[in-house]
C-alpha cells in the first residue's frame, strides 16, 4: 500500500480514504487512497481496467463508493450527483466524453450553464466564446453549429476539454484528455494543464502517455487492479519505474519491445529490400 505523509496535509484540496467500489462480481476499486493538493498536477496512471476512470467518476459524483470517505477542502463530503461535485468546484473531463450527440458544439460547451440575457439564451455571446475557447485549444472544427455527432474523435475530445475551462473549479480531473488529440492539440492541452497549476488549481491527469505524464505531472499515483500501487515524485523517478509499477513486473511487453526494437528494425528493412 502506498504511504502518503498525512491524510490531510496542508494545501490538500481533495483527499480520498479507503474508497472501494464493486460492480457485480468485479471489484473495481479496493481500499484506494489519494490526495490532491492545490497548485499540483497529480498524474493517475495504471493499466487498462485498473480503475482510474471508476475513481474519477466516484469523485465526480457519477458513482457512489461502496466504502470509504472523500474529504474536500478539509470537510468530509458525500457527493451523490455530478451537479453536487460541480457545486463543490470539481470539474471533470470524462473518458467517455459524455456529450449530447444531438446538440451542436455551442450547446454542448455551455450545457448546464448557458449564458442568458434575461431568461433567453444568448446564442451570439455563446458562439463567440466558443470560437475563442476552441482557438485556445488549436481546435480544427469547421463549424460550431453542427451536431457533435458529426465531429471527428479529436474534435469531440477538444469540445469536452473546452467545457472544463468554463467556470472556476478548484479541482480539474482530466481522464485521458489527449488520447484522440493531434500533436498540436496535445501540446495545447499540456500547456493548459500547466496554466491550471499556475493558477493554483489541483489537477488530476489520467494518461497512458509516460512522456506527457513526466512532462507535466508533479506526482504520479499508480493504480493496479483496483488497488493503490505506489505514489511517485516525478522529479525523483524514471518512467521505467512507473511502468514497472503499472504492469506489476520489471520485464514486460514494453521493455521486451524496447529491447527488440533495434533488432527488428534491421530485419524488417532487409525484408523490404529483398
Amino acid at each position, binding site marked *: 500500500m502506498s504511504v502518503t505523509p498525512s491524510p490531510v496535509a496542508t494545501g490538500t484540496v481533495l483527499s480520498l480514504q479507503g474508497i472501494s467500489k464493486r460492480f457485480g462480481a468485479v471489484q473495481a476499486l479496493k481500499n484506494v487512497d489519494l490526495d490532491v493538493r492545490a497548485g499540483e498536477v497529480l498524474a493517475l496512471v495504471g493499466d487498462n481496467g485498473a480503475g482510474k476512470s471508476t475513481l474519477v467518476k466516484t469523485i465526480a459524483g457519477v458513482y457512489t463508493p461502496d466504502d470509504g470517505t472523500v474529504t474536500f477542502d478539509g470537510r468530509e463530503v458525500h457527493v451523490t450527483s455530478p451537479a453536487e461535485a460541480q457545486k463543490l468546484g470539481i470539474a471533470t473531463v470524462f473518458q467517455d466524453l459524455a456529450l*449530447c450527440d444531438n446538440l451542436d458544439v455551442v450547446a454542448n460547451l455551455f*450545457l*448546464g450553464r448557458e449564458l*442568458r440575457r434575461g*431568461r433567453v439564451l444568448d446564442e*451570439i455571446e455563446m458562439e*463567440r466564446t466558443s*470560437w475563442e475557447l476552441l482557438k485556445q485549444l488549436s481546435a480544427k472544427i469547421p463549424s460550431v453549429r453542427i451536431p457533435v455527432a458529426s465531429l471527428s474523435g479529436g474534435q469531440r475530445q477538444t469540445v469536452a476539454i473546452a467545457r472544463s475551462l468554463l467556470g472556476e473549479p478548484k479541482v480539474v480531473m482530466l481522464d485521458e484528455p489527449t488520447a484522440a488529440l493531434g500533436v498540436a492539440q496535445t501540446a495545447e492541452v499540456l500547456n493548459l494543464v500547466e496554466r491550471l497549476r499556475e493558477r493554483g488549481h489541483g489537477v488530476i491527469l489520467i494518461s497512458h502517455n509516460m512522456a506527457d505524464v513526466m512532462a507535466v505531472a508533479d506526482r504520479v499515483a499508480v493504480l493496479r487492479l483496483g488497488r493503490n500501487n505506489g505514489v511517485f515524485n516525478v522529479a525523483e523517478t524514471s518512467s521505467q519505474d512507473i511502468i514497472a509499477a503499472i504492469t506489476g513486473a520489471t520485464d514486460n511487453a514494453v521493455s521486451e519491445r524496447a529491447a527488440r526494437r533495434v533488432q527488428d528494425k534491421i530485419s524488417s528493412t532487409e525484408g523490404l529490400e529483398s
Partner: protein
Amino acid sequence: MTTPVKGSPSEVVAVQDPAALPADLQDERLIASRGIGGAWAAFVSKMRSGDLGSIPVVIGLIIIWGVLQASNGSFLSSRNLVNLTLQSAALGTIALGIVLVLLLGEIDLSVGSVSGLSSAIMAVTFVNQDWPIALAILGAVAVGVLIGVFYGALYTRFGVPSFVITLAGLLGFLGLQLLVLGKDGSLNLPFDSALVGFAQRSFLPTPLAYGLVVAIVAVYVLSRIRARGGRIKAGLSASPNSIILLKAALLFAVLIVPVIVLSQDRGVSTMFVFFLALVVVMDFAIRKTRWGRSVVAVGGNVEAARRAGINVRGIYLSVFALCSTLAAVGGLLAASRLAAVNQSSGGTDWNLNAIAAAVIGGTSLFGGRGSAYSALLGALVIQSITNGLALLSLDSSVRYMVTAAVLLLAVTIDSLSRRTRVASGRA
C-alpha cells in the same frame, strides 16, 4: 521504393486570408455561400443531404391537399378550411405535449384518458355543481398538472418505464372519468357558455387578423436585424439584409394567404390562434430557454446531461406535467367544440392520433430530435385526411384503407428525404 515527397504546406493548400472572414467562416473546408445565390446553393445542398426540417412534411401536406381537392371540390373551400382549423386545435394541443415527452425519449399513452377526465371534471363541476366557468376550467387543468407530476414522480423515483406508467394511467383515468361522469354518463355544455362560444363561434375580426400578420412579420424582421447586428459586433457571420427580407416576405406570404382564404368564410378561429400561440410559445421555450435546451439534452443523452449538472429529475417532472396539462387543455377544447362530454370523450383514438401527429410532424420517437411545429403539421395532416375522406362518403372499410395509404404517402416523402442522412452512418 517510394520517392519521398515532402509536401510544402504553403503550396499545397490555397489559404484565404483568415482575418478577413468572420470567426465562424474561417475554416477552409467550409464551402462558401454568400448572398442570395449562396443561400440558394446552401439550400440545394441541404436538400441533397436530406437535412430539410419540416419542408418534406409540408410537401406531403400539399400533396394530400391536392389529392383530396381533386376528389372533392369542396375540400379547399373556405368553409371547409375553417372547419379544418377548428378540428385541428384540440388534437394539436394534445400532440404538443406529446412532442415534449418524445423529445425526452419517453412516451405518454394516457393523453386521451387525461383529456377525457379533465373534460369530465370541468363538465361536472360547471354544469352539475354550478361552479363558475373559470374555476371549473382551473380545476380541470390542475388535475392535469397533478397527473403529470404523479407520472414524473413515479418515473424518477422508481424508474418504471413511462410506457407502463402511462398505460396504467390510460386505464386508471378512464375509470376515474367513468366514475366522475357517474350514472348520467353524458353531459351537455350549454351552447351559449363562454367555452362553447370560444370553440365554435369565436373568430378574429378580419382587420385584427391582418394586423396580427403584419405585427408578426415586423417582430420577425426586427429581431432578425437585431441579431444580425449582434453577430457582426461579435465578429461572426451574419445573413445579409437581402436574405432577411426574402425570408420575411416568405413568412408574410405563408401567413397572409390563409388569413385571406379563411376570412372568406367565418374567419380565423380564436381557438386555432390560441393553439398557434401555444405552439409558438413552446417552440420558443424549447429553442431559446435553458429549460428547453435541457430537455433536448436529456432526450439526446441522459447521462451526459446528468454529468453536465442538469437537474434531470426536474426536467422529467416538468415535461410529464406539461404533457398532461396540455392534454387536459386539449380535452377542454375538444369538449367545448362538441359542447358535450361523455364516457367516450378522449377515447383511445386520441392517444394514437396525438402520438402519430407528433411523429408525422417529424419528431423522433427516440428522443432529442423534434420541434413544436411538428404538432401543428402532424395535426393538420391527420385532420386533413379525416376531413377530406369524410367528404367522400366512402364505405368504412375503404375509408380505413385510403386513410392508411394517404398517411403512408405523406410520411414516405419525409422519410425518403431523411434517408440520405441515416445512410451517412452517424445519424
